[in-house]
């Protein structure tokens, strides 16, 4: 039985990795496969993965096992430095549904993109990023150790940023891709610090050890309260960055620069839930920390209200959907904070499917509106809620402006995070110039005169 499970688990992980290797290698040596072959390869491997996951699910239900662990041992181990990178994958009640959803969504989007991007110059690039993304997601969802989760998390971040900048011949996709990448790095930094702290306090990164080998969602951590507070805070920042909670919400609409399918699956449906998934996975560890749960709830609630308001003023379909996604992720985070973990899981999966479908058919909006108008027999009401119209006029305008500016979140990040860095680097540049001038004598050209 165990060996069958291991085989299936190997297929789940192996197929996407194989796709990535084939696509990546042929791309690297400048011998890209023809589009038809890329399509077949991706479809085949996704289908295999899906079937294998279903098999695992069947065995788990049949044998009443609630958890399977695939331990690949240490990838790196440096004894005297107490460093090890442990690869371990868990198939349990949390990860299997997520993996199933991933395969279905990614499979559908893959065959959508195969038609949609046909003949486009970036077809191959898309599918390479696509398989990096898939591998990253599987690693993140199945991770049994925090370092494995980080690996998956990074791969997802990398491929997301590259896909946002898919149309790299235009300026704004590249700028927005860079911006998203920047925010991801903030989240990564917080994540990495949290991982190090965890290792420091518990000497390991295995989730299972932390919760006394109890399958999710049982078990409780034995971290001391301060440790779990610090780790929890950092992980909350990481989740906020990755899931677009405030104050990082501004990146999600900016991510809509890529081709429609990539926006749909990656930012609308999957990437956006990665932060929530992280919180869900580690929820048992923080179940006892009231401070963290209160903070988490507050963050989720504020995000949900903020995003609900902002999405109402958006006039383009993709931004409106992006903010609605943020709103739902806020609610999911609230659910996790309240301890409704299964509800949160169902919510994540349902939301991912709904949003993907909505984003995929976003370009058909005009036709949908016409159909609705014809059915109703008149112009559509825009459904402005009553509480807005009841506000005093100047309040209404103030709040409208607030929502239109997306809560000034981006400019706050610019001022609070970017500006200090810029100033610092400019100061370095000046120092370097002064230093060079001193070395070189007065002839050193400072700058090209306009």
């Amino acid at each position: 039985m165990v060996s069958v499970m291991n085989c299936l688990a190997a297929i789940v992980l192996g197929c996407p990795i194989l796709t990535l290797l084939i696509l990546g290698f042929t791309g690297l040596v400048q011998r890209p496969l023809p589009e038809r072959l890329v399509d077949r390869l991706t479809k085949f491997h996704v289908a295999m993965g899906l079937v294998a996951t279903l098999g695992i699910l069947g065995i788990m239900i049949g044998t009443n096992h609630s958890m399977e662990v695939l331990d690949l041992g240490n990838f790196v181990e440096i004894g005297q430095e107490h460093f090890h990178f442990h690869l371990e994958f868990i198939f349990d009640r949390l990860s299997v549904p997520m993996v199933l959803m991933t395969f279905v969504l990614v499979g559908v989007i893959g065959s959508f993109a195969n038609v949609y991007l046909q003949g486009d110059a970036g077809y191959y690039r898309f599918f390479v990023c696509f398989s990096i993304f898939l591998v990253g997601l599987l690693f993140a969802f199945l991770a049994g150790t925090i370092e494995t989760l980080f690996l998956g998390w990074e791969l997802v971040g990398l491929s997301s940023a590259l896909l946002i900048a898919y149309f790299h011949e235009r300026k704004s996709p590249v700028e927005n891709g860079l911006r998203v990448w920047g925010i991801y790095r903030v989240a990564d930094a917080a994540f990495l610090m949290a991982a190090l702290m965890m290792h420091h306090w518990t000497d390991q990164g295995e989730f299972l050890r932390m919760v006394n080998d109890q399958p999710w969602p049982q078990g409780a951590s034995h971290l001391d309260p301060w440790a779990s507070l610090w780790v929890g805070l950092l992980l909350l920042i990481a989740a906020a960055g990755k899931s677009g909670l405030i104050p990082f919400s501004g990146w999600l609409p900016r991510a809509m620069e890529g081709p429609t399918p990539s926006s749909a699956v990656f930012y609308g449906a999957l990437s956006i839930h990665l932060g929530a998934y992280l919180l869900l996975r580690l929820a048992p560890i923080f179940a006892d920390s009231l401070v963290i749960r209160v903070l988490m709830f507050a963050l989720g609630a504020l995000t949900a209200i903020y995003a609900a308001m902002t999405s109402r003023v958006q006039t383009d379909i993709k931004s409106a959907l992006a903010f609605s996604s943020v709103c739902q992720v806020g609610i999911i985070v609230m659910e996790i904070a309240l301890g409704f973990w299964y509800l949160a899981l169902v919510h994540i999966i349902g939301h991912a499917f709904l949003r993907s479908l909505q984003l995929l058919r976003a370009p058909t909006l005009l036709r949908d509106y016409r159909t609705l108008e014809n059915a109703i027999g008149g112009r559509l009401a825009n459904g402005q809620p009553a509480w807005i119209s009841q506000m005093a006029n100047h309040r209404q305008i103030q709040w409208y402006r607030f929502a239109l500016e997306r809560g000034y979140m981006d400019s706050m990040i610019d001022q609070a995070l970017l500006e200090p860095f810029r100033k610092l680097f400019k100061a370095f540049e000046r120092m370097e110039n002064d230093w060079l001038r001193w070395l070189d004598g007065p002839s050193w050209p400072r700058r090209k005169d306009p």
Partner: protein
Amino acid sequence: MEDHPGPDTYQDIEQKKLNTTTVAFSPEQVHHAIEHAIHYLPSQGPIAVFVHHNTLHAFEHLPFELAVIEGWKKYGAEPYLSEDRYRQEFFRGRIAQQDIEQVLTMDLAHCADEPIVLGTTRYELRLAMLMHPIRNGPDEELRWFIAETNALRAFRDDVSPSLESKIIRSVQQWMEQNSQAVPASATTAPTAESGAEQWKSWTLEWLHRVCITGASVVGEVLNDAIPVRRHRDIVLGSHGIDCDVRVNEQLIRFLGSATDQGFAQWGLPDRDRPLFKLFQELYGIRSVFQPNWLKELSDLIAQDRAADRSSIESIIHSLKSLGLREYGLDDFIDSTLLSLPGWTGMIWQLETNAEWTPRPFRSGSLEDYLAIRLLLDRASLRSALGQIAELESQPSVQQGSLSMERLSQDLQFHQRRNVRQTVDQRAFILFQVAQLLGWSPNELESLSTPQWQNLMDEISACGTMERRRLLHLAYERHYRIEALDAIASQPPPPPPPPPLPGPGPASTNLESQPSESQRPISFQVITCIDDREESFRRVLEEIDPSIETFGAAGFFSVPMYFRSSSDAHYIPLCPVVIKPKHFVDEIGQLSKQELQKRQAEARRVLGHASHRLHMGSRSLAAGTLTSLLGSLASLPMVARVLAPRLTSRIRELVAQVVKPNQATLLLIERIWPETKADAGPAESAAPEAKLNQGFTLEEMANMVQRLLGDLGLHRFARLVYIFGHGSSSLNNPHESAYNCGACGGGRGGPNARAFAMMANDYRVRKILETRGLVIPESTWFVGGYHNTCTDSVEFFDIDRLAPSCHMDFLRAQAVIDQARERNASERCRRFTSASLGLKPTEALRHVEARGEDLAQARPEYNHATNAVCFVGRRLRTRGLFMDRRSFLTSYDPTTDGPGSEILTRILQAVIPVCAGISLEYYFSTVDNAIYGCGSKLPHNITSLLGVMEGAASDLRTGLSQQMVEIHEPMRILFVIESTPKAVLEILARNPVLDRFVSNRWVQLATLAPDSNRIEVYQDGGFVDYQPTSISIRVFTDSYACYHHQRDHLSFARLGVQ
């Protein structure tokens, strides 16, 4: 270039600045400048009604070649394809050497043989520059190229060995004769024993040196460059800060909200007030979180409010504080408004041309917008200057050197300056030309300064734009020759029939002996002139040679506002230039009205529910509920993506329950007198609609007579089909662009249906009979609708067909079904996702799936590849494979009067429409990023008005890359079956048509009605065309011709065994 004054020095500018102190502009000046700018805005309205039009409409008063250059200066958009692209076409055989030679000969005319230098004529010089790529680049690049590549060691690859040795021989001979005067050089001169390589590199180095000498003695040459117009351009150029980025980001959000037609659930408060006031309210708010420049903005707004400035006063104030002077005002306003052309154009469209939208703009909005834009620009600029001062807080940067005053001086200077070519650049061009023409350095050294100047002038006169123009002419010529040859190779027309004994039934007596003009016709088909119907008509004729087909503008001269039984609003179904006066409703048949009421009620309830769901899924509470159940969405998603055709079939079956019943009829007849207008059946219709409901019998007879006259249709088969056309596709914001252009971007089915009903009405026929037009009793018109995307064909009102016609109908239906399959098969050869070996039945299934596929970015290719418009009898083009590239308009010159009234009205409709389509495709192809709307993949519908690229961008106008990727950009060639005299007379009477023709926005040729003689329009007259001797390809049928081919196909004759 004429409109640029000569280069001024900085001193001149300073002097002029003293003379013209800052002026306050008058409102009239500003208004005038805005009006000037309006012409340059894109004139595409809300995307739900997409009408093809000439992208450079504003420049139509200029000749084409000038206009594209003006467009380049104004918008920075490419005027032609790139030089490299034309060269590729040359190597592919799409442009022949002969084409280039002919074009050049024609273009230079009598000055072709003027010698330039060293015995080279102007013709030779230009030909060399056309045939070979001339490289150029910035100085640094050139220096690198010369230093790091073997540019000075080997001749260019395209210099023939004989030319190469000629140059070297000449140098060797010269060295032998003048061994004392060997030019000084870094390397020692080669001797007789030196190897060929050494001679080569020595020669080239010398040549390059000579060219540098030559280049430095000549006067300055202006490069083709786009001048600097705004302060932003200067700051961008000098400090790399683009002030427009944040301004545009704000404006896109603000304009999105202001123009929103009902998408946002929370609309701009008090949206009905003037734009300027809205902006002041909204952006007057200060908040600590705001970035600096928005704080600056609210200060500026506060100033404006304190001084109580109106929008025009605010503009004047802004212009003053930006230091603008009279010189360059127009340019400044143009480019300010053109920094977000799509949105700005949409404001103007909403203000003037969109009264049918839910929320049009009030007049004066564009002025408001300019005031807003200038305020934002000022705020952004001020903040940028602050930023620069802060970052460069070094003592050496002079204080205030980047003040607004300084910038506005810079602006004044730049507005008059042009980029100059450097000596290195000129020398490098000379160096290449010398190699191509075999000039040796010793010869060149003997040139005097005036000769160098002359040579340089000649070379500059054939700059890259000129070369591209000539290559484009060659590109067009190649296709024109093919097209005209093909038409000339058709069998000559039959001699005119003897005058008919009378307009009696004799001409329609099908049972009489079949002579050439009276052979039986199995049925007749009237379609739109659309190029997509060319193949449909051709395959119909192929399947059954006794079918006759005709083409007329797809509204079939029935202009109307139409509302189907399931529609909420009337839509105009006629060309945009016509404003219909009549309203036509589709209503349920009497026996089905109860059912239809129930269905309408069900639709209404379902519609409300799905609207709630749609809105709710984006909100907080309802959104939670819907996403918890969201897993259900996986079913339709998986099904739609993996099996689009099957899913749509199932959806259709389910939708049957509420789908409007097919048992409807059109209320085309005015059934109550106008005085009793309020008694109409259409209770919900607008009062105007009630007043003008339906047509009178007289009007119907006029329309029928007109269309039949235009078509030259006077011999009727038992069944006459008339097909309107349209297209349906999913996930396609540009869907309306695929519909019938002659129906204003609508679907032409109702027009065909209305026409058939009119022509079948015995009372109408009676009126026509009194006018001498007899439609035999046995003839029945059948209206239909052809979906050009899925190739489905729908027939209307066939239940009213007389039983005696049923067999004919079924036979015809079988033929039409076969034609649909063959048509689909021909279309599929263009789609890379359809394999080349598809059988016709598979092809039909493939195109059906395309229309239902959410993922399909190319449901069909629309008018892509359009190139020709033929106006004349079908028999002149019948049997010719035209590869779906030709509009086919039926016109019978033998029945037209001496004043060519019929031709006049046909051309009045056909030339503007086809030229509009052809030119929109032209411009969207040559510069897809600026004239077109870029790739479709990241498009994002905004405000229900148009598409943006990605998260936020300008509103994109024009056609997408996926629509034009297979298009060959050419001006459309009209071939008119008429005499040059008649055509010239029509042009003389119609200045609008004349502008298209004489300014060369279209190409024009005539085909004599009685012979195969072709004459081509040229500079106000016609010249005889001599067909080339290349014989046309011959095939048994279309399938044999296009089978296993993806690319464009040249003309072919079909039906020959």
